[in-house]
């Protein structure tokens, strides 16, 4: 176990180096002079030169890369060209926003997915099974940006049930403590605001959680079908249909492994999908941070945003892998 952990950590090093090389090259491979892009159509020549100077664009590449990595190691993600603020401080509240959203998306995915999967397997070949698996199939094929737009159209615009944008009621903002607004409202013991925050979470969480939900439902169902044939379940089943609860509990235990796998695999999808969902729902998270940066050609932010998301992805995968070998020691690497 320890040896595996160490090996897994060592393997991270080349990956991290490669990641920084890729993000580093973003600024240097774009067409045209970055300084010109940033300053736009009213830029004067001297302004362009000043900016080149301050960005260090005149140094040779290896030196620039060296400076880049040294800065990263000190936790310096650079400065946003657009806001001139430190990216490392700008990025934290956004990370919290994205975490909150992905967490609730995952919650939605796991809750609905696991239950649908279990019931589907239990009622195999019933109309419920058929419908659930049909929706799961549609779900894995869903363009989530379209789903998000349709949600906005139906629930925010036509029906007016849920808000179409943002994290909270802008007339009545929460004073941030942790930037996890559900928690913040909890700490303030302010439940009317908490309800507001939860309402804002519903549509984007569903949009973001749909693909993992569908995948979890399918995985749970297929692993459940195997369990169904176990002696234990057969015995319980033989006692009659009233034993659903017993099986349900047993099934949940068995669903942990596939769900864990999916969480590991799908964080990438979620973090990537966050760019789309956050853009549509005006969610001030890291995905939108990167998207806006692309529109403004704010290359340091694009660089660092992508690096941070990739870093998180790698870390979550690491944790999932380690958990995996902990939960199921039979798995060898």
């Amino acid at each position, binding site marked *: 176990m320890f040896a595996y952990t160490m090996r897994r950590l060592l393997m991270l090093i080349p990956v991290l180096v490669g990641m920084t090389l890729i993000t580093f090259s973003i600024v240097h491979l774009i*067409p*045209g*002079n*970055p300084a*010109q*892009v940033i*300053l*736009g*159509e*009213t*830029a*004067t020549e001297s*302004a362009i030169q000043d*900016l080149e100077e*301050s960005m260090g664009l005149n140094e040779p590449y290896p030196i620039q890369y060296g400076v880049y990595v040294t800065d990263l190691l000190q936790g310096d993600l650079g*400065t946003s060209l*657009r*806001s*001139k*603020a430190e990216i490392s*401080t700008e990025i*934290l*509240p*956004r990370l919290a926003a994205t975490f909150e959203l992905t967490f*609730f998306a995952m*919650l939605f995915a*796991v*809750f609905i997915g696991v*239950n649908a999967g279990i019931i589907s397997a239990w009622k195999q070949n019933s109309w419920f099974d058929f419908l659930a698996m049909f929706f799961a199939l549609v779900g894995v094929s869903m363009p989530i940006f379209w789903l998000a737009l349709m949600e*906005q159209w139906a629930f*925010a*615009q036509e029906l007016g049930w849920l*808000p*179409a*944008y*943002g994290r909270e009621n*802008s*007339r*009545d*903002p*929460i*004073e*941030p*403590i*942790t930037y*996890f607004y*559900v*928690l913040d409202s909890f700490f303030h013991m302010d439940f009317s605001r908490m309800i507001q925050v939860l309402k804002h979470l519903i549509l984007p969480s569903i949009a973001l959680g749909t693909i993992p939900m569908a995948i979890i439902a399918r995985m749970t169902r297929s692993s459940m079908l195997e369990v169904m044939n176990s002696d234990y379940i057969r015995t319980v089943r033989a006692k009659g249909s*009233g034993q*659903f*609860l017993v099986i*349900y509990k047993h099934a949940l235990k068995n669903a942990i492994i596939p769900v864990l796998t999916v969480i590991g695999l799908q964080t990438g999808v979620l973090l990537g999908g966050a760019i789309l969902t956050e*853009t*549509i729902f*005006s969610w*001030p998270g890291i995905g*939108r*941070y990167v998207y*806006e940066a692309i529109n403004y*050609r704010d290359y340091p932010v694009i660089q660092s945003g992508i690096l941070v998301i990739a870093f998180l992805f790698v870390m979550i995968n690491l944790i999932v892998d380690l958990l995996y070998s902990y939960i199921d020691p039979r798995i060898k690497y």
Partner: protein
Amino acid sequence: MKFRFWALMVLLLAFMLLFAACSGGEDTGATDESDGDSGGEAETESGSDGEDVLVFARGGDSESLDPGSTTDGESSRVTKQVLESLLDFDKESFDVVPGLAHDWDVSDDGLNYTFYLEEGVTFHDGTDFNAEAVKTNFERWSDPEHEYAFTDEGYVYSMYGTMFGGYKGDESHVIEEINVVNDHEIEFILKQPLGYFLQNMAMTYFPITSPAALEEYGPEINENPVGTGPFKFESWSKDDSIVLSKFEDYRIDDQPKVDSVVFEVIPDNAARLIALQSGEVDIMDGLNPDDAATVDAEQGLDLFTRDENNVGYVGLNTQKEPLDQVEVRRAINHAIDRQAIADAMYAGYANSAKNPLPPSYMGYNDEVEGYEYDLERAQELLAEAGYEDGLEIELWTMPVARPYMPDPETVAEIIQNNLAEVGIEVSIVREEWAPYLEKTLEGEQQMFMLGWSGTNGDPDYFLSSLLHGDNVGSSNRTFYENDEVDELLDQAKVSIDQDKRAELYQEAQALISEDSPMVTLVHSTPVLAAASYVNNYVPHPSTSESLAEVELEN
């Protein structure tokens, strides 16, 4: 059985929520610590119950809240509420009215400006506003070595450089020196007269920040604006919202009317409108022109338009064949259906343009006839130039949308279709934004699309930037050089007699129209919407208006 099943479900959900709380809690510590580093979090007692909160929704976040170091309209829209300039613009136009200076004198030679400042005004941090503060701010912008210039942190005061002819030490820099006469009197001595000096002083980009705050916040002043305006800065959560609160000691009694203002970022036009309709926000900027009819018809919503302050144009490189022939340029001008473009692009919320200058500007020449959509005339002109058999030409289309050109690609295609009718075969050239701007400066293009937006409401900013021969290679991408026009523009720039200036600009426009170095397409009139309980809201053409007088009717 059924009951137990649901009970289990509820239990499961509760468990998951608990898990949520726990795992969230771990993150809490980390976020908290880093918050301490960033410092300066707003300490608001946000007991907003029963208070009037005005929510203004817009499409993008501010870049910076230090207006001198940015050219971003979303920034000045907010800082307009917090910081004030020596002078101000009239509510609906670019006419100059008193601001922090209640009066001013100009010497006859136009080299000496004296401003008489309001007395008893304090900044939001409690320090006094005085002539010394004014001087500090101007020196900060003009002198890169100044202790508050923050040059090393990447601060560039490009708007100052553009408007005052450069920085300290530059030959073209117009401000010679600034003298504090006494606490409430300040004198600017210029090297040469500047026709639009007063307009500059009214610009939102040159307001007075508290010197004590510059000292306190240093380069973080861009996240902590402290001025004398009707609203105090409270907090900014990036890409989300900026909260301002009423400044109780504002120099004008009874203002502001509302207790706080929230600038909310909602990038998507459709979502922004939904937010307005559902009452989540009170005013929205950037209404999609196609939705204007919906808003107009809807009870409880009011439609507003801003006066036009920009021009979208097709530049004709006057030094490239065949555009070096004035007949060809005129022919192209006749062959493009401006009205169709205005209708298509802006659902009619745009006026077709015959001059580079927007109509509301001083010195706009309404006598200019412009070029009517007239295919026959175009063909005649082409024949005169020797192109009766048609010709081929390149049109460069910009890769980004701008207020003056919300959908450049579509406009390019309309133009392509238009010109095909007179036998001009257009091939569309697409470039990335940076190469586009660089190469058009170098003159690689034949026809190209671009535009210009006003800032200080002065004709010079449009006409000189775009068409003065001296600006070839910087902002004049048509390579148009006409000594007569240059002479007129030069005279107008240094004259301080506004009537005379207006005349000179009118003359210049007539000559420009004759030479036809560009096809001016449209001046767009942005539309916005507000809930009808919002009173006294007046949109300004510069896109930055004071919200001090806005009231919410209950």
